[in-house]
């Protein structure tokens, strides 16, 4: 095995910044990262073993223990739960006789939970060895288990169905659906791949591209909404011996899956946008940072990149523009939501823990390998191509005054047609609900767990940067859902699992808040607990990145908009009752010593005599004779 590991390391030129790729390859080879690899890695890459372990332990999909020949990851998003995920887990556990988070004795099958895998419109969904299985039922689980027990390749499993759209392309061959229910200017079929790159790029100066983008008011589609033209301008003007274009396809915000669909249906648009960015900021390298959950797209996307190289759309002197050299590689993540934050993503690409950096300096000044780097969302790159093709004026006419263009929404939860909808900015929530066939809606989670939870009184508000801003995730809950228990709690657990832990605030506070929420959910809460949660959540604003700053939002926003749900659960007696339950607290010790959990300290209050000591037969209280006992003598001499 040693030779094979060294081979992998040298495939990446023993470059420690490529530790992610190296470990992903090792894991492909060994199914986990065995102890003996650490020594080899440590020597070849000149890293301490603890250093390597800190990267491994950061990412959810890396493991130092065997996780089975078949590694089953079951989506634990709130929507997966709503669509019957517990039945799926139960079926796996029952059939295999193991619990979630463990591996069968023969080492064949491991079942694990995982954060949202980007399939909210076709839940319950699971991953087995990088292959996605959607719309699972207990019956399908049993079929899968039979196939796994028979040792079949994941591609040959009986649970199979053609995916829609390009998911049925032989290079993808996934039972995933694109579920595009509304096409707008971005997703429209009027696009001829690479036309702009081939025919127009040579005619336009980099400055003019920046100007056009500024004029278009295009803002980042990942959620933060930074003006794209400005970002590229900063990056173009920053000095560095190399510059980089990074496409952020780490879409981990629960409830969003639009980047998956864009990369499946029109990856050309994204790569063309990246190449244009390369031309504009004078970068020679582009990197698509793709979340591990979408590894099933790897062959398909690499095939497209190869075809682009063959057609001189990547490589040297692209499209006949002398000196325009640009190539793209795909970098996979390994399961860490926080890597969607651009500086954390860069850290991850360097083989490190995905911890966000302090800013300044910003990535446009010092990003990947400390060089100026433009990081943009998948949808943003796609929008750039359309803007340059059709003009900023055309684009500005779409949407609202402050939010130009369209937004690709990922809509899921309680509605008739969960899927992808491209809408102009400015649409109201109510219109959106009518569009997707949502009835008896109790609440909508706008922008994923880090966004806001709104109720019917806010359904006339509109989706745009200045009102309800969103990176694309829209989750609908009907009146039958238990918002606090099944949604807010799930989201809090998500943030706790996904925090990088670097900032004290985000590392500790969400867990403290969840404990308090649980206290309330168990009927032990008092009024003060609500006030506490509101006050405590504020300190999260002092966290470094967006994850930390919004990690209390599920609770804070639900208190703001659904306070009645909390009030219903409160206990009224604030002075005497503080969530402490004496009857519960004595159960364990009574069991251990074998006595009835009956408390009688009545003498305290009414002044009656202590009950007579009734020795229970075996127990005769008498003073033991300690003389001669070694321990006693030892202590006595010390005294």
């Amino acid at each position: 095995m040693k030779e094979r590991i060294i081979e992998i390391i040298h495939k990446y030129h023993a470059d420690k910044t490529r530790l992610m790729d190296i470990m992903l390859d090792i894991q492909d080879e060994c199914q986990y990262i065995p102890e003996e690899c650490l020594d080899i890695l440590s020597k070849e890459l000149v890293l301490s073993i603890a250093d390597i372990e800190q990267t491994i332990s950061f990412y959810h999909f890396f493991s130092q223990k065997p996780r089975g020949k078949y590694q089953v990851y079951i989506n634990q998003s709130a929507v997966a739960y709503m669509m019957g995920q517990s039945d799926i887990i139960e079926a796996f556990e029952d059939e295999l006789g193991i619990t979630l988070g463990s591996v069968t004795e023969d080492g064949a099958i491991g079942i694990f939970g995982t954060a949202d895998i980007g399939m909210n419109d076709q839940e319950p969904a699971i991953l087995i060895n990088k292959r996605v299985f959607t719309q699972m039922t207990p019956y399908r689980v049993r079929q899968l288990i039979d196939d796994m027990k028979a040792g079949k390749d994941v591609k040959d499993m009986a649970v199979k169905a053609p995916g829609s759209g390009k998911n049925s392309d032989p290079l993808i061959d996934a039972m995933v659906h694109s579920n595009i229910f509304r096409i707008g200017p971005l997703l429209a079929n009027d696009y001829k791949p690479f036309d702009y790159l081939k025919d127009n790029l040579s005619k336009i100066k980099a400055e003019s591209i920046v100007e056009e983008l500024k004029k278009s008011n295009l803002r980042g589609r990942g959620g933060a909404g930074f003006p794209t033209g400005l970002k590229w301008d900063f990056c173009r003007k920053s000095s560095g011996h190399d510059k980089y274009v990074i496409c952020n396809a780490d879409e981990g915000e629960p409830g969003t899956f639009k980047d998956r669909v864009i990369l499946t249906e029109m990856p050309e648009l994204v790569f063309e946008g990246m190449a244009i960015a390369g031309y504009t900021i004078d970068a020679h390298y582009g990197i698509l940072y793709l979340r591990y959950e979408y590894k099933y797209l790897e062959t398909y996307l690499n095939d497209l990149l190869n075809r682009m190289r063959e057609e001189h759309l990547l490589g040297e002197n692209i499209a006949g523009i002398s000196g325009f050299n640009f190539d793209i590689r795909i970098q996979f993540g390994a399961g860490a939501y926080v890597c969607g934050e651009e500086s954390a993503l860069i850290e991850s690409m360097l083989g490190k823990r995905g911890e966000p950096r302090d800013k300044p300096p910003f990535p446009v000044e010092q990003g990947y390998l400390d060089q100026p780097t433009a990081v943009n969302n998948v949808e943003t790159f796609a929008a750039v191509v359309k803007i340059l093709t059709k003009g900023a004026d055309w684009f500005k006419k779409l949407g609202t005054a402050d939010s130009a263009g369209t937004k690709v929404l990922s809509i899921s939860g309680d509605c008739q047609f969960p899927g992808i909808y491209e809408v102009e900015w400015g649409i109201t929530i109510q219109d959106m609900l009518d569009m997707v066939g949502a009835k008896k809606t109790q609440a909508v989670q706008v922008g994923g767990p880090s966004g806001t939870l709104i109720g019917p009184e806010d359904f006339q508000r509109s989706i745009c940067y200045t009102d309800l801003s969103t990176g694309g995730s829209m989750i609908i809950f009907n009146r039958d859902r238990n918002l606090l228990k099944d949604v807010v709690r799930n989201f809090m657990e998500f943030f706790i699992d996904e925090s990088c832990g670097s900032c004290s605030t985000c590392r500790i506070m969400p867990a403290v808040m969840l404990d308090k929420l649980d206290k309330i959910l168990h009927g032990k809460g008092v009024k003060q607990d609500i006030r506490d949660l509101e006050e405590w959540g504020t300190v999260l604003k002092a966290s470094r990145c967006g994850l930390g700053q919004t990690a209390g939002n599920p609770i804070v926003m639900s208190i703001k908009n659904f306070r009645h749900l909390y009030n219903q659960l409160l206990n009224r007696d604030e002075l005497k009752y503080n969530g402490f339950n004496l009857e519960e607290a004595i159960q364990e010790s009574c069991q251990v010593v074998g006595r009835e959990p009956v408390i009688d300290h009545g003498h305290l209050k009414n002044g009656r005599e202590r009950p007579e000591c009734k020795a229970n037969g075996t127990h005769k209280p008498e003073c033991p004779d300690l003389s001669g006992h070694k321990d006693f003598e030892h202590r006595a001499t010390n005294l």
Partner: protein
Amino acid sequence: MSKLIKFNIDGQECMAEEGRYIVDAAKDNGVYIPTLCNIPGLKPKGSCRMCTVKVNGRLMTSCTTPVSDGMEIENHIEEIENYRKMIVELMFVSGNHFCPSCEKSGSCDLQALAYRYQMMVPRFPYTFSQKDVDGSSPLIIKDQNRCIMCKRCIRAIIDNEGRSFFTFKNRGIKLEVIMDKEMGQRMNEAEAEKAMEICPVGAILKKEKGYDVPIGQRKFDMKPIGSEIEN
């Protein structure tokens, strides 16, 4: 020497060399901004968030943000001081900070900040953490229950090849600082001494050392942390 610029903290006019981090520039002007993870001379990490200030209305960590001309900094204001107190309290409840039995008591930065902020009781429930204590190194003991993840040891205790003796493991609430087992074995006296010294709490202790300064003479027994800076 680089250019001198003007800025102000809570209305007080200050001057500093351009590019100096706010926390240091404030210190030069007799203004104390509390820190835990910061160590002068090492690249700042901004992980404890104690030194958070408002810069032109935005929350920033003053150990990582350079001053610039005309900057308006808010430091000693209710909102910020409340955040800082909350952070101290969060750290207390997240570990086992039982001061009466700690070797660092009296010389502990976290405790000193709690004194400064008159923390009578943390507002958050205690978690009573039960994490491992690593005594595998011949020279030091590493008590994870007292660690506040400031990353000081990770950044400061480095061997000749630039490798750190300490690193992070896991993430989020499960984050821990671990010692490289093999490197811990060959740690020398000076490195061990420095590790204990640099740890702002009692998470890294040199073996056979502790309680060597009488109560009343320890670092923060008589004077609050930061009082040496404030004029």
